């Protein structure tokens, strides 16, 4: 893929129009106030038929699995434009939302990508049927909880949250933090250790449970105050002897496959970052070009100063590279492939750092105005920082890339 197709551009202009008429006018309430993002996101999914389409496809696949038809997952021969377009259709709304509100993408991505994704990958048919469809349309808000006050990058190693068998039920305890959608979630995937006998690796198995809002013993905190991504509520979860039946154990299996599933989830989280970064970079660049032409100092438009030109040129280079990574994702999808973990890590690392650099330079280019909320670049700058932290920090991506390279030697 070397450029967006006419069809892609059409989707882009439709989504852009929606964002500019439905989100931009209330951006201050969403980014600085207490308006949760779900209403407008629901409207967006409905307007473009995104939720219904995803739900329809999911239910059709489920029906096929029930009938015992095996879903063919093998790599297909050659390039299939429809698969590439399906990927583009996922990424274009991410890019467009991120031009103004990366937090919206975080809230949406965690609900649909992580939460519904985890249940779809690991859940029993009954669990998939019950929990996935309302998450895909955002009728229900989802959260995916692994991080704890004492365990972040080392998510499994220091995990304290636990499940204990009690007859046919399980009793869950622990606390989770930095959980996107935590304050408002209706459906929560809670990841913990199963007490009892260690697995073959000598560790207690990692398992996941599906929890409903309002389950006795489950407390969902108010949104935490944070640096950016204000349109994405982040909170803590506290579980105090929460009793759940076995039907809430994801996959209804104590095998401990949750570790692999959580890793897959990390992978899918990483791929979204390229598109997010592209939206942020595109918008910064657009604002900066305009400002460079109109802001006059020393009798000249500041765009005539070479130091400003350097900033613009570097931003453009970042935009090209990040766009190419997005194109690669789309092209790979056309071949029925996706980036492996090392490549996804490399892409996430590069895109997150590029977005951050571009945003910082954008604030600088705008001078004092850059520091003022009115000019918007400061918001994107605060938002972009988290791309280097969540979904695995830069440092973790680096070690993953290095590890995979050294293994191959």
């Amino acid at each position, binding site marked *: 893929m070397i450029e967006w197709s*006419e*069809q892609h551009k*059409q989707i882009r202009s*439709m989504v852009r129009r*929606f964002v500019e*008429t439905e989100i931009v006018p209330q951006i201050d309430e969403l980014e600085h106030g207490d308006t949760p993002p779900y209403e407008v996101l629901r409207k967006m999914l409905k307007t*473009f*038929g995104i939720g219904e*389409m995803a739900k329809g496809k999911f239910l059709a696949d489920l029906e096929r699995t029930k009938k015992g038809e095996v879903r063919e997952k093998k790599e297909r021969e050659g390039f299939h434009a429809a698969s590439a377009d399906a990927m583009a259709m996922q990424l274009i709304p991410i890019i467009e939302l991120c031009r103004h509100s990366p937090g919206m993408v975080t809230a949406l991505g965690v609900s649909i990508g992580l939460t519904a994704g985890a249940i779809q990958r690991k859940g029993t048919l009954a669990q998939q049927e019950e929990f996935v469809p309302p998450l895909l349309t955002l009728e229900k808000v989802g959260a995916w909880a692994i991080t704890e006050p004492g365990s972040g990058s080392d998510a499994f190693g220091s995990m304290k949250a636990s499940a204990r068998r009690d007859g046919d039920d399980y009793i869950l305890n622990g606390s989770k933090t930095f959980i996107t959608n935590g304050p408002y979630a209706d459906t929560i995937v809670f990841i913990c250790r199963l007490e009892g006998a260690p697995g073959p690796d000598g560790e207690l198995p990692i398992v996941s449970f599906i929890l409903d809002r309002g389950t006795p013993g489950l407390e969902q905190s108010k949104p935490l105050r944070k640096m950016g991504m204000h349109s994405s509520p982040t909170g803590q979860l506290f579980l105090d002897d929460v009793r759940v039946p076995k039907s809430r154990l994801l996959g209804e299996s104590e095998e401990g496959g949750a570790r692999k599933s959580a890793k897959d989830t990390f992978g899918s989280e990483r791929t979204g970052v390229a598109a997010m970064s592209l939206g942020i970079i595109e918008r910064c660049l657009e604002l900066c070009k305009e400002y460079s032409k109109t802001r006059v100092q020393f009798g000249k438009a500041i765009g005539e100063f070479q130091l400003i030109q350097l900033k613009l040129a570097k931003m453009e280079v970042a935009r090209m590279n990040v766009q190419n990574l997005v194109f690669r994702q789309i092209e790979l999808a056309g071949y029925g492939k996706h980036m492996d973990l090392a490549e996804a890590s490399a892409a996430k690392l590069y895109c997150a750092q590029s977005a951050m650099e571009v945003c910082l330079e954008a604030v600088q280019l705008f001078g004092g105005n850059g520091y003022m909320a009115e000019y918007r670049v400061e918001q994107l700058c605060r938002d972009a920082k988290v791309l280097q932290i969540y979904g695995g920090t830069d440092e973790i991506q680096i070690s993953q890339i290095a590890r995979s390279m050294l293994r191959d030697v």
Partner: protein
Amino acid sequence: MKILVPIKRVADPDNANKVKVSGDGTQVTSEGLEWKMNPFDEWSLEAALRLTEDGAKKTRTGEVVLVTIGPKDAAQTVRTGLSMGAERGILVEANDQELDSNMVAQILKAIVDKEKPDLVVMGKQTVDGDSNVAGTVLAELLGWPLANYAMSLATDDDGKTLTVKRELDTGVSTIKVTGPAVITTSDRILKPESVKNGVTPADFKYPEAEGGRYASLKGIMAAKKKPIDEVTAASLGATPQKTLSYLKFELPAARSGQTTFVESVEELVQKLKSDAKVL
């Protein structure tokens, strides 16, 4: 019901590249422009779609045929209309620079003769030429009734007669036209309850919007497979004659962008007279 909706692409004012005039002032140049559907046409398309669907059930009950007259890549604008819900499209190949409203009306007449629609619903004008002529001339050529500047449309029980409210400077005029007819629309046609077709429940409200409907992703995908016939005026048997010649184009003078602060109403009036020369 079968409705023909003529649409034209115009320069997208939101794009950084603006319309330019050639050095000798003989023509408007279109290099590097991004295009969008003329907003008046988009509203007409919205009205036509509402007339031919069950808005509540979101099912189509009639046919909307789009026609554009322009270069080959204007097909993209037709594709946009198809993704909003129209059934098929026609592209009459022509060079924008060599058309005038009269020729457009003559070509449209040839299309109407072939397609035999129940209605032609079109924009009252384009935002580039601003002539406000094509619809009126087309009705005259066809000998059909004309309802200009429609702000609401309602079909009568016979399905052929339409009650049309027309938005005029002096107020609202309500008329009845019996199809086939030509209708041009105003932006009020986008109001939630402006179109009644006897199929969509009478109490159904469309969402408040400033433009035509958003194409859904499904609609955009489906549009790829909908047919766009490419024809020429000659193949339609039309020999449109140009009656208008352009003498010269020039861009409006750049605004000075100067702000003057005044102390009193008297001074304001004085400045409006002496400096701005608007009083």
